């Protein structure tokens, strides 16, 4: 099946893109990598009147750094993010999680910003972005604003982005030298996470100096496992500490239920996967 008819806009600057969204009103869809949007359009589960293709806006692509951040252009593909040296050096959790997104073809087209703006709680990049304290750079008709990840995700598939706003870039604070692991649990390789856990640790002299832990699909939005982080910080990076800390993983979460698991099962997974992610991060 093919999509319902729509008008197509292909801006070449961020300003043009925002203007196209303003002109189109509520019925517009932003086409980033399209790996979620195109299937929906094909099955006619959505029928926007205008599709704004931001694939030809050079500013949106690529990865740079400033003193404190790695700045990932919203339209940078998963393939490019996962292989990027800045990301690997300074935000390795993002690289680890990105490697697990969908499958190779989808990683060639799908984009970092597109995934975050889609705000699927089962998506793999939200929790790492949250855990690392990423900040969203958003462009709208009144200029640009910055929104921390902790405020960006509102509910299932819902962000603070207004209909006429565009996610331009994501600033990920540098976590240089941190040890990371993303532990994903799904039923088949290309399926979404039932639960996944991203951890990033700063280990110094055998002590855990700082810790960030993010949970995927444990609520309608990504969740930071603060209890785990607190139980780790200042402790030796030993197996007992990691195991005890992981027991806090389900605190403050509100996992959903579906055929793949109920809330109790997801809570159990969160603990087990957190324990495994921590020991992988430390050991690897």
């Amino acid at each position: 099946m093919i999509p319902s008819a729509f008008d197509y806009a292909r801006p070449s600057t961020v300003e043009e893109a925002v203007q196209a969204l303003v002109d189109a009103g509520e019925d517009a869809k932003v086409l980033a990598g399209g790996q979620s949007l195109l299937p929906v359009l094909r099955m006619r589960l959505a029928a926007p009147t205008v599709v704004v293709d931001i694939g030809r806006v050079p500013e949106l692509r690529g990865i740079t750094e400033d003193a404190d951040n790695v700045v990932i252009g919203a339209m940078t593909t998963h393939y490019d993010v996962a292989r990027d040296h800045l990301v690997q050096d300074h935000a390795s959790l993002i690289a680890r999680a990105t490697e697990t997104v969908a499958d190779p073809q989808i990683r060639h087209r799908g984009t970092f910003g597109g995934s975050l703006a889609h705000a699927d709680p089962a998506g793999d990049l939200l929790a790492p972005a949250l855990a690392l304290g990423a900040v969203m750079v958003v462009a709208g008709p009144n200029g640009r604003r910055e929104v921390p990840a902790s405020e960006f995700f509102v509910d299932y598939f819902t962000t603070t982005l207004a209909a006429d706003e565009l996610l331009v870039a994501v600033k990920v604070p540098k976590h240089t030298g941190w040890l990371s692991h993303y532990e994903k649990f799904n039923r088949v390789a290309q399926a979404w996470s039932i639960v996944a856990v991203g951890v990033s640790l700063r280990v110094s002299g055998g002590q855990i100096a700082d810790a960030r832990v993010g949970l995927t699909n444990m609520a309608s939005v990504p969740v930071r496992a603060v209890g785990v982080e607190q139980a780790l910080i200042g402790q030796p990076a030993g197996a007992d500490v990691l195991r005890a800390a992981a027991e806090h993983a389900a605190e403050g979460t509100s996992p959903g239920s579906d055929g793949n698991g109920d809330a109790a099962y997801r809570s159990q997974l969160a603990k087990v996967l957190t324990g495994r992610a921590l020991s992988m991060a430390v050991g690897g």
Partner: protein
Amino acid sequence: MTATVEPEVGKSRRRKEDARLITGRTRWTDNIALPGMLHMAILRSPAAHARIAAIDTSAAKGMSGVLAVVTGADLAEEQGSLPCAWAITPDMKNPPHPALAVDTVHYAGEAVAVVVARSSAEAQDALEAIDVDYDDLPVVLDMEAAIADDAPLVHESLGTNKNALWVFDSAEAGTGGSVDEAIAAGEVVIERKYRQQRLIPAFMEPRSVLCDPTGEQFTLWSATQIPHILRLMLALTLGVPEHKIRVIAPDVGGGFGGKLQVTPEELLVFLLARRLGKPVKYTETRSEAMATAHHGRDQIQRLTLSARRDGTITGLKVDLLADMGAYLSLVTPGIPILGAFMYNAIYKIPAYRFSCTNVFTNKVMTDAYRGAGRPEATFAIERLMDELAAELELDPMEVRERNWIRHEEFPFTTVCGLTYDSGNYEAATDKAKELFDYDGLRREQLERRERGDAVQLGVGISTFTEMCGLAPSRVLGSLSYGAGGWEHAAIRMLPSGKVEVVTGSSPHGQGHETAWSQIVADQLGVPFEDVEVLHGDTQSSHKGMDTYGSRSLTVGAIAVVKAADKVIAKARRIAAHMLECGEDDLDFAGGRFTVRGTDKGAGIGDIALAVFAAHDLPDGVEPSLDSEATFDPENFSFPHGTHLCATEVDTETGRVTIRKYVCVDDVGKVVNPLIVEGQVHGGLAQGIAQALFEEAVHDENGTLTTGTFADYLLPSAADLPSFVTDRTETPSTTNPLGVKGVGEAGTIASTPAVVNAIVDAVRHLGVDDIEMPCTPFRVWSAIHGRTADTSGGQAGGGLGSIQGGLQ
């Protein structure tokens, strides 16, 4: 000239079929475009059970490019009722089955209107302009609830949701004892209830059909396994003279039973093409295929096994509920009956009773899916063997050995009255155990248990057999099947010595072109490359019963051998004339007749040319070597094998990982080992997928919630292990090639091997069953004594994740 050459049969020939498929030079039905071709799209019911109060098509009719908008009421006079060819009992209930619903829909996805337009996009656009009012009716989904006294009815007019009750009792049949007596006297009695979840065949090529009404015949291309049956059924259903229909199955992208069907879409395309006088094509989307192409399995099995304390089985009682879905399709009611004769499997069971109640529900029809009845039976008995072993604290292999038919006991007539011609279960098992390191894995299992490892190891066994090669026509007749089980072949000797083989088998991935070429090369002594195999077009391959039930080699290829025998017999008479000798003086080998005791001879190609010229033939001999044969087997064939699976079960997450899978199959004589190995691999993948991944799930409204590949989980390469496959070779004694068939073996055998391994890994934790598919959630729940509620709710993932934020 041809010298003595290595036989083709037995060689791992690379496939002839590949050249086109690896370069994209393919003829899938959807690739075919004809001048003036129109496109059909189908409006499908979102409701599982509802009366159609009104349909307003007026807006759609006026849309750009739209030639026709048609409802069931418009076609009521001409669409007939979709055929069911298997009335399993004389009093079987069979409701009318319109291609396009007329006044009531009985499952979600049922067709309620069609649009024919210039382009498929315009046809889709017009669908959205059709307005249907539905009055909801009660939805019947659960089989056990459906047969309760006060249950709402799927078909009011039938007065019941029961389609039929079919019973086999060995005491009544005189093939065995009374099972009730056996159970009453049983030293051990095991009762279990197993669920065969609903599966979706999920062939990779969505179905497509194109009808060209512009010639003298209607030509229908369809992605079907059964072009010949389809032609007859179109004629019978629509009242069109059979000789005015030509059906072509071009390249067909997999079937697995899922394309063993006469579909509403085929009828609708035919009717609309006829009505409009233009070629009309319809290609389904994957979502349509998932929701409306027939499903498989979906049975509830209640099983009672009695045995002596030494492990000897004394009786087996099987009570089935089988979900038909909303209507009967081509062989829907007979699928569970195909399993009836296989519950006793390879074992000497003295008393047996099988009863099956077929039930209507508001779901899409079930019908053939790889194995069709036999995987369900094999699962049940192989799971029971493990349960019996556990009950008696015996090794599960030991229990099997105590009960199976020993190789010296063949031919063996079973409690069902089937005669197994040959087999050697000991040999296959010995080989499998050695390849598997059975004893080593058992040791490791013990160690892990003693250590209390988070990851436990289990070993699962499946010593299976199946009946395949559908089928002796007289047997089918005794089961009230609507047709015979013969197959047809013809051989055409071309003047240049090349050979055309016409087969009634209709391949869709099996490699018949290669295998048949190998067989004919040996039979006629011609080079493999000189043989062309024609199939899948009722004009060239004018007679056939098509491909399903592992029947092509054991029936179709035997017809080819018989036709080749006739070619040689004809050639012999001409050769004798050419060589001026008696027919009895001739030897035929390597494609050449030679006069015994001399160096005189003539090649089959020389004879073909002489026949073409026809200048000097013996009196009364027609100038043709061409021959045909129709073969009707005397018996089924009975492949068997021993499958061993080791699984690691993560008790903390419930994740199951297959650590090792070994199978030793005995499929008789092998024509092409490469193809056989491929069939086994693919069969294993599908059987393992039933054990671990796949399930068609409906919500309480009857909507399929696993309606895309995002939700219905087919395993990818990353989700399956490498398999160790090997063979023993005990030839079938009932056909001249000694072949048994291999298409379904892997699927039938593997599901219980995997589930036995999973249960074996966690039995010491108090688990004796886990419902399929054994998802991590279900496995973890079983270990922790919880019931996994898999009925729904909301969380991220699957199709929801695709559509979520975009609405």
